[in-house]
């Protein structure tokens, strides 16, 4: 298979993947966020403590998460037809992807929101804040860096799940790799798609980490996060040299000055 043959296939696959992951990611965030917050609020000791609601929600989330995605894909076919009017193509894949990702993201949101110090909630209550105020002004802003990390994880997971969406003819990069690359022995094409997926995941993860970190560092010594790709060597003159030489020359600025004892030097 030549590049000119591969190119249109790859391009179409990229758009399909973007479409599926984009929409399902968006729906997962919109749906999972309130669900996750509700799981925290209704929990024992929560602002809206309600054991029954909490248990029911928790069970729904657990059942949805225990379902293998490929089964969810098939099981949801009637529902998908109801929502988007078709059961094939990327539009149809968005529905099961979103349904699968909502409980996944909700659990991550739950963990993130639970991390917020209860004292802050109490402080806002003491000012006369309502539950809605607590959610809007305390829980979400304080958990934001962690929520962004959770969303990143969810999108990366969706990218993986979207490979299975080929079973409903949705296309996408994963599907391309399986059908052309694996089943038709187009090894080159397979490796290219895998590479594209790897790059895509790296970029998503990098952007997510960067956003989360820059928000988490508010007010810390350096308010602007630095891009440290390589840790700068602290001791300029003898950095690559063995620790032994550093100790022998009595260089105090070695990488591990405390560990290198003069006695060890032959």
């Amino acid at each position, binding site marked *: 298979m030549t590049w000119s043959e591969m190119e249109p296939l790859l391009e179409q696959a990229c758009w399909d993947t973007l479409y599926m992951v984009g929409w399902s990611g968006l729906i997962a965030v919109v749906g999972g966020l309130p669900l996750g917050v509700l799981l925290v609020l209704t929990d024992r000791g929560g602002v809206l403590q309600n054991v029954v609601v909490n248990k029911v929600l928790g069970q729904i989330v657990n059942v949805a998460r225990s379902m293998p995605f490929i089964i969810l894909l098939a099981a949801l076919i009637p529902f998908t037809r109801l929502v988007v009017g078709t059961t094939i193509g990327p539009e149809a894949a968005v529905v099961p992807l979103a349904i699968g990702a909502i409980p996944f993201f909700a659990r991550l949101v739950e963990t993130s929101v639970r991390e917020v110090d209860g004292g802050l909630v109490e402080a806002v209550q003491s000012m006369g804040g309502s539950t809605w105020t607590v959610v809007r002004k305390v829980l979400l802003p304080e958990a934001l860096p962690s929520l962004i990390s959770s969303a990143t994880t969810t999108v990366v997971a969706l990218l993986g799940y979207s490979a299975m969406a080929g079973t409903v003819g949705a296309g996408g990069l994963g599907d391309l790799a399986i059908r052309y690359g694996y089943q038709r022995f187009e090894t080159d094409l397979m490796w290219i798609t895998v590479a594209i997926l790897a790059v895509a995941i790296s970029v998503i993860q990098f952007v997510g980490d960067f956003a989360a970190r820059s928000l988490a560092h508010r007010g*810390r010594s350096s308010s602007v996060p630095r891009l440290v790709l390589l840790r700068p060597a602290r001791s300029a003159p003898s950095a690559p040299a063995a620790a032994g030489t550093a100790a022998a020359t009595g260089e105090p600025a070695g990488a591990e000055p405390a560990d290198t004892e003069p006695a060890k030097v032959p």
Partner: protein
Amino acid sequence: MITTTDLTKVYRSRGREVTALDGVDLHVREGEVYGVVGQSGAGKSTLIRCVNLLERPTSGTIAVAGQDLTALAGRGPRAGSALRQARSRIGMVFQHFNLLSSRTVRDNVELPLEILGVSGRERTRKALELLELVGLGDKAKAYPAQLSGGQKQRVGIARALAGDPKVLLSDEATSALDPETTRSILQLLRDLNRQLGLTVLLITHEMDVVKTICDSAALMRGGRIVESGRVTDLLATPGSELAHELFPVGGEPSAADRTVVDVTFQGEAATKPVISQLSRTYNIDISILGAAMDTVGGNQVGRMRIELPGRFEENVVPIGFLREQGLQVDVAAIADGPRAAAPTTQLLKEGAK
């Protein structure tokens, strides 16, 4: 200003009942600084959290500024709008500051104003004014993580004042701070109390806090208030535990046939040379076992434990002389005497630990 009547709080968990508050009657007058002291687990924290109903009392009533809060509470754990409105007029500062790390100092102070629905420009003006008041005018744009503990608590106080409260609740506000910072925060609270006529209810386990700023105090133990009143009155009360805690004077008698007497000086009497007069008048040797002097609410107050030779019966006249001088005298350590019980048992308890 703050009145609680027969306040009771019982925690139930897994069939076990823990009584945190056991019929607490508290009365805080308008414009005073009232300190509640006690060891951890005495119920102080529950009490102060009941005052703005962060904690629902099992029974009893709470009135703040003439408004019965327990009547506003309604059923269930959620706070209705009437209660929320009442809360917005009660400021609260916390031991661990509880500032939002995602907001700047100014935005933290603006938070209660946002809840009250104050417009943006007015919020900013008010927040900057309050930060100026607590001495942090230059830190408006900083984040809480960039501040020291004392500065954070100042922000906490500015935030608590944003809703123009008449009452400020302080939940161990200085307990996470070093002594130096504690003093400056207490000074700030004192100034606010005087300048704004703010009524302050604070809980603490540090006796120094009571000594430094409180007009009145209460001692809690096992969910009950065992002693309460104006600090000056308490010091004048024979056998007062709070007085003893505020001015601990130690010292054991040097021999069996000695009389140990705790003398409390206040105001006028504190300036008179009573001990030397006593010594000269009755020609007896007096040894001082322990003494403490301090200023409480602007008054010079001192306590001294002295030892007189001979048994109590032989010292009735000198003790009478001290009482005539306007001093408060507690005979501390007569063998198996009833008055000696309180301080001695306390010592024994501590020894047992």
